[in-house]
């Protein structure tokens, strides 16, 4: 892996303009992925991780959404400056996406095979029988039994896990350099979850595809991601290698997330730990640190000024006043 990131999201701001006000879904987010690397974007529902992913492919509905500012550099090109035709060439062929709910993400009136073939026809110039055969090969690759029968069936005839495998097949069909997987395992049960993640991991390793894994489940991230970004209320609050984040979580939110994951190697406690309070209203986000109102350790400055993200130890970045104070010297004043 060279050091140039394949995807570099810089200072992304994506807002939604609604009747009730401006929802600041993504409020200054930066992350990157290198070729062949897997990063995880972790946070609870509504923190902006999906919106940031959709922004990469410019799939934000305008109105009411709008990418207000920032840069998204993919393989040297700023995706936000491309024309509609140009971004369309990239979608599916160089960046592909796996969606959370495969039942609704697949067209119910078309066979699974024809949907995959549609993508093959578009980007790999395969038509008719050739496309169908490739679709069968892809279905086999993702572990769907009897693929030549399945390729002619409709999405509602597949089970939940199989549908997600079909989505994965669709995503890899045009050999993209980057896959964004948005909560790919939320809708299936735990055993299938593990299988699907193994599958995705195996495929990305084999095809040397970069992977952005979006999830709210910090527990699964350790095995599958090289680096982790923790998001809260439209901001990145912490990021680093997954080993480092697990061993030494610094941001109170990250620590809260990790603490709430039940672990087999610890004695049974009386109750599961949770983080008190609710995520903030994104139309009127709090003035200082977004997490401060919920944070057990907050002090005055936390409520007044938003903390900058700073490198506490090599490769480990945190946005928190307390950590900044305890760790290395930070930028003085604003």
């Amino acid at each position, binding site marked *: 892996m060279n050091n140039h990131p394949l995807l570099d999201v810089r200072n992304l701001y994506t807002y939604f303009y609604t009747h009730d006000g401006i929802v600041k879904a993504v409020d200054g987010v930066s992350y990157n992925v290198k070729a062949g690397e897997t990063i995880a974007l972790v946070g609870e529902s509504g923190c902006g991780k999906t919106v940031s992913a959709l922004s990469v*492919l410019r*799939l934000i509905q305008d109105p009411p959404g709008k990418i207000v500012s920032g840069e998204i550099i993919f393989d040297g090109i700023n995706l936000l400056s491309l024309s509609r035709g140009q971004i*369309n*060439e*990239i*979608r*599916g*062929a160089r960046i*592909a*996406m796996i*969606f959370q*709910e495969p039942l*609704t*993400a*697949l*067209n*119910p*009136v*078309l066979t699974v095979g024809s949907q995959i073939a*549609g*993508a093959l026809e*578009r*980007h790999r110039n395969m038509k008719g029988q050739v496309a169908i055969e490739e679709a069968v090969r892809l279905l086999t690759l993702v572990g769907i039994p009897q693929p030549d029968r399945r390729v002619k069936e*409709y999405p*509602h*005839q597949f089970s939940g896990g199989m549908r997600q495998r079909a989505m994965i097949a*669709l995503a890899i069909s*045009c050999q993209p350099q980057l896959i964004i997987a948005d909560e790919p395992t939320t809708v299936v049960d735990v055993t299938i979850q593990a299988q699907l993640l193994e599958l995705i991991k195996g495929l990305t390793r084999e095809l040397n595809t970069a992977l952005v894994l979006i999830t709210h489940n910090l527990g699964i991230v350790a095995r599958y991601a090289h680096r982790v970004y923790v998001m809260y209320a439209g901001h990145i609050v912490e990021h680093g290698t997954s080993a480092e984040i697990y061993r030494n979580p610094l941001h109170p939110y990250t620590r809260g997330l990790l603490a709430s994951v039940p672990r087999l190697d610890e004695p049974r406690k009386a109750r599961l730990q949770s983080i008190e309070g609710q995520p903030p209203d994104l139309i009127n986000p709090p003035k200082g640190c977004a997490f401060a109102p919920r944070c057990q350790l907050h002090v005055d400055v936390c409520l007044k000024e938003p903390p900058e993200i700073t490198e506490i130890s090599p490769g480990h970045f945190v946005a928190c006043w307390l950590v900044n104070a305890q760790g290395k010297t930070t930028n003085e004043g604003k």
Partner: protein
Amino acid sequence: MTKYIIRRVFWLLLVLFVVSFITFSLMHLVPGGPWDREKTLAPQVVEALNKKYGLDKPFFVQFGNYLAGLLRGDLGVSYTYQDRGVTEIILGGLPKTATLGLIAFALAILIGVPFGMAAALKQNSIIDYCSVLFSTIFASIPGFVLGILMIIIFSVTLHWLPTGGWGDIRQIIMPSFALATLPAAFIARITRASTLEVLRQDYVRTAYAMGLKQRVILLRHVLRNSLIPVTTVAGPELAFLISGSFIIENLFSIPGIGRLFVNGVFARDYGLIMGSVLFYAFAVAVVNLVVDILYAVIDPRIRYS
């Protein structure tokens, strides 16, 4: 799929049976009977007429005879047109009514669907706003009001088109448009609403995410899904065209079934009324059956459930 069709056919027959029973009973509830017109007839004449038409037999025997006749395709006798049976009368007017209805249906779809889709694709633009406004207006004004306006404009004032009749191409223009406008507006609204709904669906987002071309997305993914609700209303719309047409037929003096029906009502020709009602019921039921089958063809979820 075959089971689906069989169930629908069975349902059709059941409906027809119930309708014929109800109609038949209603006819027999009429106080006085079919001979009660301007003049009172001598009792012997009434008796003779009753005998001739089999009206003196008990109710269920009459009904049984009637049903037997129906199975043979005989819709009974007309009390005003002594020389022809109801079936013959109806078949005489059928071609004109059917032509009018089908042309109007085709117009309704050819106008409604594209307008509806265009409005949805360019939501909140001028096209959308006008389309919504016009479709609301035209969906509320009955065909015959429009027909009257058209006659006044195009016949009375401009003298471009004749006021009615049948045979000349020019005579079909106004009635078919008058008949088609309401369904067209309704179809446009439904198409717009369903296209908007489809455009919001996840699978459309997936199609965009896979970089498919706009035209492909519209034709392959959006169109078919948008048409599903349209098909659902197509059946009742066609049924509406069949029934609504009789007022238009009257207005434009088209010698179709509708006119016959209206004349029959006015003349208290219960044989004709009953036969016409049954015929309409049959036509509506058949149309609904065809639509149900079409529905299953378009939406595989119905086929394989």
